[in-house]
């Protein structure tokens, strides 16, 4: 049996997800559809961050940069240079992954706190570039009229259509990630997380593994970024800044750093909280700060796992032994 549907819980979760995904857009409410669509896009980035932080043990506080690079490359190629949007998307993904691969070697000479600071700084530098290189990016006034994707004559021009496109990609990314985590590569990743020196003593080139995972997660982020650009049709620097990098960390933490399917839960929780609390200003960010502190102290493996453990403890106490 394939690895990703081992266990009844997981199968149940996937079934629920599929049902939810197919029902919601049929309700015909564009607001719900667009919220769920954004959740799908964010979940794609979050999974990549989970692979890097949760499974490989390497912090990134600048992941929004990859998301932004993907969005800008796709937008600029398809609009300014009239490249076919699909091709532009492929180029964006490959170029972002290549960029991540190249910076990975110097960056991963750093560990822990220093790595965190370096990625934070890199994210800020790239964000400054989005803003300052205004002759290509449009700078602060943004980049308008990005074309949308289409297959033959079928254009993904409505929320409803784009929704299925995004979730198709999202589920594909989930399966691919789940497969990698359960493979030889996934073992090497977890080995590096638990003890880098021991993993190297067994013949694993830890730096190369980290760089590959960084490139993969950058590719995911670029995929999500280009989907975002095509969906909204307009991009400007704010959504790709330092705060979004931190927001991605929140999504990963809530879903469970070392959990693939948890990324959807994390992305959904964060997005829904923001939507519900929208009328009250930035109170969602206050909660995000609180939530990640509480989750890291009480249940570093994520909210779902934490609630599961809690439930087991309660039910054990209730059943007389």
């Amino acid at each position, binding site marked *: 049996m394939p690895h990703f549907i081992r266990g009844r819980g997981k199968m149940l979760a996937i079934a629920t997800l599929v049902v939810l995904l197919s029902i919601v857009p049929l309700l015909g409410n564009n607001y719900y559809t667009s919220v769920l669509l954004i959740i799908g896009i964010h979940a794609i980035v979050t999974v990549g961050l989970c692979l890097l932080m949760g499974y490989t043990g390497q912090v990134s506080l600048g992941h929004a940069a990859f998301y932004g690079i993907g969005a800008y490359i796709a937008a600029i190629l398809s609009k300014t240079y009239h490249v076919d949007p699909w091709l532009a998307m492929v180029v964006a993904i490959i170029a972002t992954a290549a960029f991540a691969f190249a910076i990975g070697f110097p960056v991963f000479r750093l560990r822990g706190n*220093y790595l965190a600071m370096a990625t934070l700084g890199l994210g800020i530098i790239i964000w400054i570039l989005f803003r300052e290189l205004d002759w290509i990016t449009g700078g602060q006034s943004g980049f308008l009229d990005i074309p949308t994707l289409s297959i033959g004559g079928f254009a993904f021009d409505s929320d409803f259509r784009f929704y299925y496109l995004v979730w198709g990609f999202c589920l594909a990314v989930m399966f691919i990630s789940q497969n990698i985590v359960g493979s030889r590569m996934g073992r090497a990743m977890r080995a590096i997380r638990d003890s880098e020196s021991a993993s190297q003593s067994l013949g694993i080139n830890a730096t190369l593994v980290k760089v590959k995972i960084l490139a993969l997660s950058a590719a995911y982020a670029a995929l999500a970024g280009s989907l975002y650009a095509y969906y909204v049709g307009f991009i400007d620097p704010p959504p790709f800044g330092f705060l979004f990098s931190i927001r991605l960390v929140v999504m990963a933490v809530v879903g469970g750093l070392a959990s693939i399917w948890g990324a959807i839960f994390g992305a959904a929780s964060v997005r829904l909280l923001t939507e519900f609390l929208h009328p009250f200003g930035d109170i969602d960010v206050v909660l995000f700060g609180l939530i990640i502190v509480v989750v890291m102290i009480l249940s570093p493996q994520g909210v779902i796992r934490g609630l599961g453990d809690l439930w087991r403890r309660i039910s054990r106490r209730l059943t007389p032994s």
Partner: protein
Amino acid sequence: MATWQLVQYLVTGITVGSIYAIVGLGFTIIYSVTGIINFAQGEFVMLGGMIAFSLIGLGFPMPVALILAVVLVTLVGIIFNLVAIRPAGRASTITLIIITIGGALFIRAVAGLYWGRDAVALPPFTGDESLSFLGAYILPQSLWVIGITAVLMVGVYLLLNRTLVGKALKAAAINRRAAALVGIDARMMSLVSFALAAATGAVAGVVIAPLSYASYDMGIMLGLKGFVAAAMGGFTGVWGVFLGGLGLGLAESLAAGYISSSYKNAIALIFLFAVLLIRSRRLMVGEEGA
């Protein structure tokens, strides 16, 4: 190239450099005692400036408002340590990074809700009539910043080297387990280091606010620059971080003056990567894992 111009840039550089040095001092104190890089350090600076602003608005006399602001931020540092750092115990580096980021996010967002998004200015401590020096203009507040930084640096140096608390902090910094064996409570030392870092951060906030506006979102860049100063100083001792801060401040001010002010932040980031890459060479043979 006019001399007065150069002098002007140097004065600006030393002034902001002093601030970076104080922020960096906070990083150094916490890191050397606990091994934690406190990503909320910049938020202590922001809180210092903003709280002082509010207290002055409430009618407190200036000196009282400033001191009270520092005291309140120190309390925030203590509370942060008690509710977020202590319960985490001996957690992994990744966990602690995320916790201090959570704290930073929380403080920043609360500040944004309470004070709004607009920048605020504190009145200067003693008038805003500039003094003339070699043709350059120096605001009295610059002298306050430089003077208070010097006093603070000497004060922290004496505290660390001449008092019992300081010796306990240093012992905990050198070897936590050995310190525990001679009866030094590591959790208490962690608390003291956070209190001290919050207090110094707040001082930086109140002295700089009259010169460059304070706003809820100033913490991140100030924190990053303070970290650069601390990293340049090697996270040990007071004088390294002092020189690191001054070096960064001067480089930034000269680059802004002679090249372009839009590259000001880029200078700090270049310094960041330079210092990280130099340190990484030493870290290569470093201890295990993240």
